């Protein structure tokens, strides 16, 4: 799974640490998600989507 969290976060002027606090996860988790090293759970993915006010599928894309 790939995502564009990094671009969306930067567009909002958020630091990784602040973004992590808003999501209630560690900064390491944010780094791993941004580098596509960690696929978040559905709950976390929906939190991200809610934070960016976008549908989940516009942030996360499933690789074939």
């Amino acid at each position, binding site marked *: 799974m790939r995502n564009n969290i990094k671009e969306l976060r930067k567009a909002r002027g958020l630091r990784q640490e602040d973004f992590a606090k808003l999501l*209630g*996860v*560690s900064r*390491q*988790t944010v780094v*791993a998600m941004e580098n596509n090293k*960690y696929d*978040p*759970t559905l709950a*976390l993915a929906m939190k991200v989507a809610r934070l960016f006010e976008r549908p989940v599928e516009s942030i996360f894309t499933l690789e074939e």
Partner: protein
Amino acid sequence: MGAKTIVLMALPFLVLAGAVGFACWLGKSRGASPRASAWAERLGVGQADEMERQIQYRAVSIAYAVVQALLVGIGFYEVFVRDAPLPLSHLALLAGVLTQSLATLALRHRSTVGDEEYKPYPLWKTLLWIGVVSGAVALFGMLCAIGVLAW
């Protein structure tokens, strides 16, 4: 054994008990006590989030596999190289594998309760089948061993 030796031998256990106690206190009162929160912040101890839990799960799985492999290796070495009886550590291995199997069955059963399209096989029947098959395998093995010894 002198008193000094006993004290020296007890020291590592005391330190370990102290560390475990401190970790428990930190984990329990991190949210409630400001002092515990400050200590947690200072030590960089945070609440494990979902990625951390996944990492821990993977690490534990690897450690479990290593322990299994080591115990099997030790068992083979003791029995076939040193001609010693089967070590008690094999019981730990068997207990671990048995716990894993039963926990998998029970958790899977609990997760599939309420299946509308397929009635799940009752857990007790599954366990009964496992007991019957294990018993049959053990009986077969015992008969083979008796046959070999009698031959």
